[in-house]
């Protein structure tokens, strides 16, 4: 039974990683931008969420407000900064690194240096009995939330008009533009959605991972590992990669505690060596 619990832990972490990696993957797929600020969106989401919960007491409100604020920040970053350096990876890297430092330091300024854990929502604060062992409901709710977001994103990408425009843009932005698709608006939209999802991950992951100075780097690197394993620009890759890394991280910590991070990075290096585009990526 203990293995069921370890697996559930891995899957719930994987779902969280999916939320963080999905936006990163979409942004790269459409704009070829390596967004190093992505972990900062998570951190901001968690911190703003904690403030909203503290002041209003409403978990649901935090789940809406924090991602929306961060989405607006993402849109501003794309519209007024990154746009000028389209397809020029060095300035993009410097800009997103700059924002990573700025947001990290502003967070330290406002919320201080002590790590925080968000409270669990009252609805899922209990534990359930799982064959004699108690398991927190919140982790199960997290898995459900991840699956719901994955389904919604899939529907958005495959069944809506904007989703079709997005797929066209990922395949060939130039031609999509020539066909009359407003690629410029799409860029801003995708950046905002990516930031939204990462901040959502911040609020949802707040009760488990929490927020602390440096978490922005850790989350950013984890999200990068997920998209490298899964393949850039692919939602399916982000989901499979997220689950794979979530499970590897969990079981790695159990079997090889000395090499906790190694169990994530080694599969990544192996995949990079044999399949540089990742499991579901296209060359």
């Amino acid at each position: 039974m203990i293995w069921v619990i370890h697996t559930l832990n891995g899957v719930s972490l994987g779902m969280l990683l999916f939320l963080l990696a999905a936006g990163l993957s979409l942004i790269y797929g459409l704009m070829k931008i390596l967004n190093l600020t992505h972990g900062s969106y998570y951190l901001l989401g968690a911190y703003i969420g904690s403030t909203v919960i503290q002041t209003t007491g409403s978990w649901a409100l935090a789940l809406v407000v924090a991602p929306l604020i961060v989405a607006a920040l993402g849109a501003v970053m794309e519209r007024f900064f990154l746009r000028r350096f389209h397809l020029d990876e060095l300035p993009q890297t410097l800009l997103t690194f700059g924002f990573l430092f700025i947001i990290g330091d502003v967070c330290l300024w406002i919320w201080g240096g002590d790590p925080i854990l968000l409270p669990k929502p009252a609805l899922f604060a209990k534990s359930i009995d799982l064959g004699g062992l108690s398991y927190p409901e919140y982790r199960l709710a997290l898995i459900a939330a991840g699956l719901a977001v994955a389904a919604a994103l899939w529907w958005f990408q495959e069944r809506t008009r904007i989703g079709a425009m997005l797929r066209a843009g990922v395949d060939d932005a130039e031609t999509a533009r020539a066909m009359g698709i407003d690629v410029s608006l799409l860029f801003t939209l995708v950046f905002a959605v990516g930031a939204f999802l990462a901040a959502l991950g911040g609020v949802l992951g707040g009760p488990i991972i929490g927020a602390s100075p440096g978490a922005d780097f850790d989350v950013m690197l984890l999200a990068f590992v997920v998209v490298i394993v899964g393949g850039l620009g692919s939602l399916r890759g982000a989901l499979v990669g997220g689950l794979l890394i979530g499970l590897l991280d969990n079981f790695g910590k159990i079997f090889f505690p000395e090499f906790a991070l190694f169990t994530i990075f080694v599969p990544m290096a192996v995949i990079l060596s044999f399949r540089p585009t990742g499991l579901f990526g296209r060359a």
Partner: protein
Amino acid sequence: MARALAISAIVAVFLAAPFAAPSYYVGLLTKMLIYALFAMSLDLMIGYAGLASLGHAAFFGLGGYTMALLLMRAHASAWIAFPAGLVAATLGGAVFALLALRARGSYFLMITLALAQVVWGIAFGWRTLTGGDDGLPGIKRPVFLISFADQTPFYYLVATLVGLSALAMWAVTRSPYGLALRGIRDSETRMRAMGFNVWRHQFAAMAISAFFAGLAGCLFVYNNRFVSPDALHVVTSAEGLIMVIAGGAGTLFGPALGAGVIIFLEDFISSHTQRWLLVLGVIYVATTLFAPRGIVGLWTDFSTRKRKP
């Protein structure tokens, strides 16, 4: 003539510094020189080979950690540990090149970042060997015939090695090999069509760059008498990147200047406020927006405008 005068003046200033400056500033100058070497080695890749890397800290840390581990765990002499650090860094560069050179642009950035994280993960995780997060404290500065334990002799050791390295890198960029490298940076397809082995040139560039980054790493460890996973962290790679770009990529002198400016600002601003990272972030953004060709680029624009009435 003007250039020879300028270079002699710079050399004279560095030679005289320990006599004129208080010891605190000699220490700061040592740090500046070490980072200048690190930035110049990264410039070989970015400015000359056209390979923007986000994993340069790996070579810096591989050099430093290999030397530190041999000194502290195997009790080897500095005569063995120091060169071994350089060899390890160079081998690291070769391995990175084997894995990363298939990719270009943002994919290259990501693969170098990922590989550097693997190295960081080992240093961070393998506590029994590397001390993990706590690092390896208590490293003694070397005795090469004479002792370099004190700040002034150590400063002269660093200044000499950094000066010789700068000269060597300058010679590399001026050599036929360096010219070919610049050709590859500007147009890979054209150079390939002319019969150059692009991969081999870039492979060698990464190995050479890693060698000098490793040297900077060894000096860094001696300077601090300590090494921790921070030396391998992506922040170290990013600092190298901003030093190169803020100074002016592809000029060697620019990145060295950029390193000096960033280290000075870090020291100056950290002593007045706690918001150094905020300032550093603004430097990244402002450099990208207003000085994409760095200090050297700004100076060239300024002096050419002055000449043409």
